[in-house]
């Protein structure tokens, strides 16, 4: 398969890199530790307008990266992770808006994380990498925008963990954010969400090849643990209905039961495939760090209520949830809406009917495309945002 580059594609794109927080200006993390330098991998699509007011920051989820749209080469099998939503004429219309996506700190797709070389030791950080939070991810993005010369965001959007960054942006930088589109997310990770992440982390850490996080020198990473973590994750991204429709009880390459433990059910085959595929592109330690950041996420931490946490929020909101998402269920989005309402924030909320579960945020394209493009058009009108030349 090769790249499909039509008039709605951003085409061939390139990941760029910039090094920020050079000592002595290290980033101060929520944990109190300082970290620098930090390399940030990012991509941009579209053009900035004259007064630099048409920028939109896209925030990726747990396993995402800076490559949100387009293709890295004509031979790529797949485009960027949000290609369905980012491009000329799409939800995030790159003929009107300048879109930016960067890999999060702690990641393994070009931004500094546990697999990066610690300049002080010349060896990969491993578990000596400091624990990061969603707010730390946002601080790094803020610095990237400063480097790019962007002081206001027309919008910030993302799903799942990306949506957590969106909420954090609106809270931490209220004067920079004109609108926010959190999708399939929550203002705090639920006990159930933490529980699944704990299983994933334990799967990795109990793989003998994990070696306390110092596996980089051995060229033999803990793929079994990481694959298992990913399998658990994938279960939480689907729904009972979508699994029933997609797999049912159907067998893979077999007519009848084999009465053995070979891969037999289609759902089994799917989970193995997803698990194994993931180990080819993702670092096990990054999985630990990023899921930990998700688990720590709680905007009400240190506050009496979510409404208090949103007190300084000024962005106009479009909150989107999916009816069958049980990882970040609509009730958690409604909590966000209620807390924003309590602060008289201009908020719209849509609960899209879907049986895809949490994955719906990447699959329910048409409804989201309409919601997002119409919402952005209204915000752009309100702030007189011109199109790029």
């Amino acid at each position, binding site marked *: 398969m090769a790249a499909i580059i039509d008039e709605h594609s951003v085409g061939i794109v390139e990941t760029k890199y910039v090094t920020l927080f050079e000592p002595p200006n290290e980033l101060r993390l929520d944990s109190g530790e300082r970290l620098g330098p930090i390399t940030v991998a990012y991509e941009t699509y579209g053009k900035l307008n004259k007064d630099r007011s048409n920028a939109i920051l896209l925030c990726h989820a747990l396993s995402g990266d800076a490559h949100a749209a387009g293709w890295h080469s004509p031979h790529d099998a797949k485009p960027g992770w949000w290609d369905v939503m980012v491009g000329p004429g799409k939800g995030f219309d790159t003929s009107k808006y300048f879109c930016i996506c960067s890999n999060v700190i702690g990641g393994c797709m070009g931004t500094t994380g546990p697999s990066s070389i610690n300049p002080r030791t010349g060896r990969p950080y491993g578990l000596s990498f400091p624990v990061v939070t969603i707010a730390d991810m946002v601080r790094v993005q803020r610095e990237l925008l400063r480097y790019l010369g962007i002081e206001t965001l027309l919008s910030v959007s993302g799903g799942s963990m990306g949506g957590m960054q969106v909420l954090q942006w609106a809270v931490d930088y209220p004067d920079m954010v004109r609108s926010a589109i959190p999708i399939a997310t929550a203002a705090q990770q639920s006990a159930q969400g933490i529980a699944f992440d704990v299983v994933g982390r334990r799967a990795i850490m109990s793989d003998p090849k994990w070696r306390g996080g110092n596996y980089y020198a051995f060229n033999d990473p803990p793929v079994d643990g990481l694959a298992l973590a990913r399998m658990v994750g994938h279960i939480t991204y689907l729904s009972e209905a979508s699994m029933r429709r997609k797999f049912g009880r159907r067998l893979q390459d077999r007519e009848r039961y084999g009465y053995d433990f070979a891969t037999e059910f289609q759902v089994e085959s799917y989970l193995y495939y997803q698990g194994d595929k993931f180990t080819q592109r993702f670092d096990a330690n990054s999985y630990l760090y990023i899921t930990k950041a998700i688990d720590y996420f709680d905007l009400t931490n240190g506050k009496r209520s979510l409404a208090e946490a949103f007190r300084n929020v000024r962005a*106009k909101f*479009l909150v989107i949830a999916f009816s069958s998402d049980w990882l970040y269920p609509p009730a958690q989005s*409604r909590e966000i*809406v*209620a807390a924003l*309402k*309590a602060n008289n924030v*201009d*908020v*719209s*909320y*849509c*609960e*899209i*009917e879907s049986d895809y579960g949490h994955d719906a945020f990447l699959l329910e394209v048409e*409804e989201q495309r*309409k*919601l997002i493009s*119409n*919402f952005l*058009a*209204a915000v752009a*009108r309100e702030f007189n945002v011109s199109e790029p030349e």
Partner: protein
Amino acid sequence: MSPNETRIDYDVIVGLVERGARVLDLGCGDGQLLARLIAEKGARGTGVEISQAGVQAAIARGLSVVQADLDEGLADYQDQSFDWVILNQTLQSLAKPTLVLEEMLRVGRRSIVGLPNFGYWCLRLRLLLRGRMPASRALPYRWYETPAMRLLTIADFRAYCRERGIRILQEIFLAGEAGHRLRFWPNWRAETAIFVLRGGRN
């Protein structure tokens, strides 16, 4: 009712709302009324709508609309935080009309309730003569497809308000294709009624 048709009830409601008012439209549908209130009265308006299609259409108009079920109440909204709360052509579709009416009086300084009048003489006559549930401009559905679960008359609503101590500040009765206003015998002659209620604790 087609979306492009000029709606007389909308004209009446737009006429009632003063400039710059804070308005909450419950059951706002595609947001046509809300959009008019904002455009013509500079209202600061927001809506609540149960259907995804309605929310989608209202957002396409650039409105702020929250998808929610009114029968679950208005807990997200603070006491007396709106100048007007509007419940137009929606009361008849609610499972918990009393809850919603109490909530709208709590949230708004004044409320507008727009109703199809089942006491309209044509409806009475058709039911009497044909023995079948009648349809009209204001109640255009058959029994198996109608969202109207509660068929009430102007007299019913007045009695309801009286029993609960809800103060009706104004009543507007509309009849006929042209929607001209009626003063006499409204429970016989009006197809649609619009009530202005005083908010707060009545």
